[in-house]
Each structure stands twice: as structure tokens, then as C-alpha cells.
């Protein structure tokens, strides 16, 4: 076995970089045949093989820089069992052992982290996150060409699709304190994008109403057992709410609309989204043509969609086409929230928890089941008065509930 070492190519030279191996492990090499190429401060050169044999081991891969006299490979009779492209342990053959060099990061881990002053300036000027580029330069460096290509594809992309606003600046994970860094799931990324986009698109205003839903609570309490037994559907408050919302939307079409450029699209379908929270996210399945369903049909649809949402079995069209959304943060104790509009809709109704509260009824204090209803609406299209009239209508319908549900 013969060690192949990084030669000293000049008096003041302390290290060299292997730029190319002419042989692969297992190749036969003759004495004085070019074996590998190195690059030092002063010279780039081919290094001939010190002996004839089989290149049995490559210890220093292409692109790695090591001190002189480091064993970069081994020539023997056969291929070594384990070959590790890592700095070798100090070799007894060379008593003044060179200091172990720091491990050279692999091309992948370097990717996007190393670049030139020019590339950094271009990134600054063009607002490019260099970490999103893959580098084609030495050791994964991002080069000028990489940036130019990126700019070209970005120009093409933005001319083809409507411009997607840049994600809001996110504070970088810093080295301060203890932190666990996790990648964003696809659903989380999508939520993040939609939330920010919506805030940027609509002029959000939230109005809050309080409704006495004692009649609904009574109706549900008295019927839920039967309902579940006879229809196989769990009776929740959601169909009541959706029912009232649809009726009110018919009176106030501005709430069941969307904005497209400088036009208003009044939607004639009543496709009501119902937010369902999932582990690690939230999804809004849509009850299409909710106005055409009976109470039972609506209850069944809501229950079915929620169940399949949790089982991740929704079809794409079942989360699309919504015209108005109902979300329900109540179960966890929230009084009310200020929900973010589900684009391109113009309003979303947040339903708080239903709690018994003392209220004044006919100048007497009574215990009633009360709920806060918070409507976030897009003030570009919906005036405050309209939103409040709509909410008053919803409230009236909930409070005066008289529909037979079975």
C-alpha cells in the first residue's frame, strides 16, 4: 500500500486543493501517470502517481483543501473495504502530522450560502433571497449566471401569472436563545399565504352583534337525540346559523359577492364555506347551493364535509367556489374574534361560544343563551350600514327561530 500525499508545491505553501481526480477508485494506475490535479496559491498542476497499482481509496474528494503531506488517497493491490472521503487521521508515515483540517461542507449544505460581492449586490437590488437559488458554481456557489437565469424566469413567470405579492418579511431564525426550526407544511404555507394576501387585498372591518339564541338551544336540546337516532346525523348549531345567514344574504346581496378588478360580481349561488379545524391547520369545505337544501340536507352536508375534512378525503371542488364563510371559534371559549376574509369573498361570520348570560328582557333580568356574532367584511364593497343591517337580519332570524327541523 502506498499513500498518495498532497505535495508541497513551493516553500511557503501550506495547503492545496484537489481539483480533479483522473482515476476512480478501482482504476489501475501506472507510476508517473497523471493521478489527480491540485491547485495551490501558486500553481495548478497534475500530480503523477507515485507508484503502479490500483487506486484503492480516495480520502480527499474534489474541491477539498487540505494541508500539505495529507494523505489524499491510497494505491494498493485492491479496493479498500471502506473508503471515506473525509480528512484522514494523522498518518504515522508522516510524523509531523498536519493539523486536521476543518471538514469541508458539502456542496449541498453550501448551496446558496456562498456567493460573490456581485451576486450579493444583485440580490439586494433585485430583492432575491439567495437561499432560494441553487448555485452552479464551485462548491455550489451562486454565480452571476444563476442570478440572471433566476431573473429571467421570474420575469417570465410574472408576465404569465398575476403577480403574487412577495411574502411578508419574516424575522430570520436567530441564534439567540433555544429554538427548534421546523419546515412549514404545505397546508401551513398555503394558509400563511392566503391570510397575508387577504389582509393585503381587503379593507377589513369587523362588526360585532349579540344574539339571544335561547330558542335554537332549546330546539337543539329537545331534538338532538331523535335527530341523531333517526337521521344518523349529529345536530350542531351550524345548520341553524347557515340557514339564517342564507336568508339574510338574499336580502343583502352585497355580502354574497366578490370584486374582480373594477367590477362587482353578485353571486347568485349560495355556497357557504364552513371552517373546520384540523390538526396543524384549518380547511374550509363548501356547501354548494346551500339555499336549495332542506334543514336536514344542510345538517347532513355540513356533518359529512366536516368528517371528510378531518379524514383528508375532500375533493378539490369541495373546497372551492364559496361565496360566504361561517367560522366558529366558540367551542374553545372565545367570545368573539375578528376573522380574516376568505378571498375572493367579501365577508365572513365568526360565531362565538354560546353561553348563558343574565340579560334584561322586558325590564327584568333573565337568564338567556347568548352568542356574539362577529362579521368581518370588505369595506371596499360593503358599507358599514349594510353590514349592520345584514347582521341585524341574521340576529332577528336566529332569535325568532321558528322553523321545524324535523
Amino acid at each position: 500500500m502506498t499513500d498518495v500525499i498532497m505535495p508541497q508545491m513551493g516553500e511557503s505553501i501550506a495547503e492545496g486543493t484537489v481539483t480533479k481526480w483522473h482515476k476512480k477508485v478501482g482504476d489501475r494506475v501506472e507510476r508517473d501517470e497523471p493521478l489527480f490535479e491540485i491547485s495551490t496559491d501558486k500553481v495548478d498542476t497534475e500530480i503523477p502517481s507515485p507508484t503502479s497499482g490500483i487506486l484503492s481509496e480516495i480520502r480527499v474528494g474534489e474541491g477539498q483543501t487540505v494541508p500539505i503531506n495529507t494523505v489524499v488517497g491510497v494505491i494498493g493491490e485492491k479496493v479498500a473495504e471502506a473508503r471515506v472521503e473525509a480528512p484522514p487521521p494523522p498518518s504515522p508515515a508522516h510524523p509531523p502530522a498536519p493539523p486536521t483540517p476543518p471538514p469541508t461542507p458539502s456542496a449541498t449544505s453550501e448551496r446558496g450560502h456562498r456567493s460573490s460581492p456581485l451576486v450579493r449586490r444583485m440580490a439586494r437590488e433585485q430583492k432575491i433571497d439567495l437561499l432560494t437559488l441553487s448555485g452552479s458554481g464551485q462548491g455550489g456557489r451562486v454565480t452571476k449566471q444563476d442570478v440572471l437565469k433566476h431573473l429571467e424566469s421570474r420575469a417570465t413567470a410574472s408576465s404569465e401569472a398575476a403577480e403574487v405579492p412577495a411574502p411578508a418579511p419574516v424575522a430570520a431564525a436567530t441564534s439567540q436563545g433555544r429554538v427548534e426550526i421546523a419546515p412549514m407544511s404545505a397546508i401551513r404555507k398555503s394558509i400563511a399565504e392566503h391570510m397575508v394576501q387577504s389582509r393585503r387585498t381587503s379593507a377589513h372591518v369587523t362588526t360585532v352583534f349579540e344574539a339571544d339564541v335561547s330558542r335554537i338551544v332549546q330546539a337543539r336540546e329537545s331534538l338532538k337525540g331523535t335527530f341523531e337516532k333517526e337521521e344518523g346525523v349529529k345536530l350542531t348549531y351550524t345548520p341553524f346559523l347557515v340557514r339564517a345567514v342564507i336568508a339574510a344574504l338574499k336580502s343583502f346581496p352585497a355580502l354574497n359577492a366578490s370584486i374582480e378588478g373594477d367590477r362587482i360580481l353578485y353571486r347568485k349561488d349560495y355556497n357557504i364555506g364552513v371552517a373546520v379545524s384540523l390538526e396543524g391547520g384549518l380547511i374550509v369545505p363548501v356547501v354548494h347551493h346551500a339555499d336549495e337544501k332542506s334543514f336536514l340536507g344542510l345538517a347532513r352536508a355540513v356533518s359529512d364535509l366536516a368528517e371528510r375534512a378531518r379524514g383528508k378525503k375532500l375533493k378539490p371542488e369541495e373546497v372551492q367556489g364559496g361565496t360566504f364563510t361561517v367560522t366558529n371559534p366558540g367551542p374553545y371559549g372565545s367570545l368573539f374574534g375578528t376573522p380574516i376574509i376568505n378571498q375572493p369573498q367579501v365577508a365572513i361570520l365568526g360565531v362565538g361560544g354560546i353561553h348563558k348570560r343574565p340579560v334584561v328582557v322586558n325590564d327584568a333580568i333573565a337568564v338567556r343563551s347568548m352568542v356574539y356574532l362577529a362579521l368581518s367584511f370588505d369595506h371596499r364593497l360593503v358599507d358599514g350600514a349594510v353590514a349592520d343591517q345584514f347582521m341585524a337580519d341574521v340576529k332577528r332570524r336566529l332569535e325568532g327561530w321558528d322553523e321545524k327541523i324535523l
Partner: protein
Amino acid sequence: MTEVTYLEAIRRAMWEEMERDPRVILLGEDVGLYGGAFKVTAGFLERFGKDRIIDTPISEEGYTGVAIGASFNGLRPVVEYQFIDFIANAFNMITNFAAKSRYRWGAGVPIVMRGPAGGGVRAGPFHSQNPEMHFVHTPGIKVVAPATVADARGLLKAAIRDEDPVLYLEHKKLYRHVKASLAELESAEDVVPIGRALVRRRGEDIVVVTYSAMLYVALEAAEILAKEGIELEVIDLRSLVPLDKECVLESVRRVNKVMILHEDTRTGGMAGEIAAIVAEEAFDDLDGPIVRVTAPDTPVPYAAALEDAFIPRAEDVVRAARRLAAY
């Protein structure tokens, strides 16, 4: 078609200037009777006489001093060093006297110091050197190093007409190797202004900044690399002092990668100076390290194989350019 060599261009420049201006005189070892070691001044003695063509003893410091004194008395001497290596003998006269005269006394020294520089002709360590940096480093001296026939003539004429000392470095390997047609020479600039570089080849990948004989090495490498899709831009500095740094920076700002190539040895060479200027003034335009391709820090070897290894070759440029292009 009449061809004019680099050497002939030097000869013509002096001849024409001597015809034009009676104040121009020549001094040097064997410039008269013998016509110069390289026959640059052949026929001059016959035409201009021994008052204007002066054979000197082997005493570089002495005849450099004579030239300076003559210039103070209204003449415009051209000093020839038989080999530019021996300018070392006149170092004190040049750096402490000629270079500082205008600063100290307001007395310009309109002399030209010229001689054959460079290697590649198997002339060994005393007849192959490139001494430019001693003088580039000394404020008060202009330094030019032409690579082409037209520049050989045009820069020498400019040097003779200049009011300050000019070191004119002619590359001996180019003397008879570089040629141009007479028509080409006649259509070229008669006087080439000192301090103006020239882009000899346009390219988008790497700028190679060079001068003198290395221009041809750069152009040869550019041909090879063009076949691989690497386009070199080649700048011929022509003047080292004053340096046309705007020309260099302009190319660097467009091309973003720079290599400096010279035949002079590495440490303290022109490449280091240009690298510093680029780093200071165009840092944000760099897409790779500033690369030097130069002779190593040794005397010029006599052995043919060693001299070949010493002087940068096209393959050295090609190899360095490939690495820089891939950086």
C-alpha cells in the same frame, strides 16, 4: 506587401523624430558604429552624425546622467540600455534624480530610457528581466510597454515628445516576431497618447488585463477558450504609468471576473496593484476572485525547459480561466 516589424517600428519612430526635431539625440553602448546590439539604430550614425548619435562607455549611470544634463540644456535625449536588465546600474540616477527633478526644482527631464526587456529567447537571468516595477513604484517616471507595431512607434514618439522621463520597455521577443503591413502602420495613430489602454478583444466571461508580449498569450488562450464557450475580454494596458484604470474598471463592471497576466514575477508585480484597484473600486462588481497569472518569484532560468515553465503560457491562462469561469 511591405511588412514592418516591431523593431522596425521603433527604428522609424526615432528616425522620424530625429528628422522632425534636431534636439533629439541618441546615447548608448554600440548605438552608433555598430548600429545597436539588435540593430535598432543601424544607419543612424551615417544619417545624423556623431554629434547626435553617441556611443558611450559601459557606464549606465554615467550616460544616463549625461542625458539628464543634456535635457536641462535643451536637448531631448533617448538613452538605450543594451539590455534593460542593466538599467539597474542607473537606478540611483533615474529614481533619485530624474524622477524628482521636476518636483524639487521645477525642471522637467524630457528623456526617454529604452531597451529590450523580457524573456523567451534563452538569454538567461541577466538578459531576460522585466524591471518595470522598480520604476512603476517611483513617482515621477512614466512607464510604457507596447505590444504591437503601431504602439511601438506611436508610444515611442509620444515618449520623445513628453516633458518628463519615460521608461520605454520594448520586448525583445517581439522585435522580429510581430509584424504589420506598412499600410496598416501608416493608417495607425502617429503618436499614441501615454496612459491609454485598449480593449483588444471583447468577451463577456473574464477580463484579462495584460501588457507587452503577454498580449499574444492572452489572445491565444482566448481562441482556445472560445471553443469551450468561455469568452475572454483582453485589455492591453500599453502604459503602466499613468495607468488607465477607468478602462480596466469599465470592463470589470461589465464582465465581473478579472485575471491579470504578466511576464514579470509575481510578488509586487503589476497584477497585485491592479488587483488592489479592482478590489477597492469595483468590489461589488466581482463575481469571483481576482486571479493572477504571472511568472513565479525566481530569477529567469536559463535552461530551456525551465524558462518555458517560468514564462506564462496560453495553457496557464486557459487553466486559470476555466477555474475562474466555473467559480
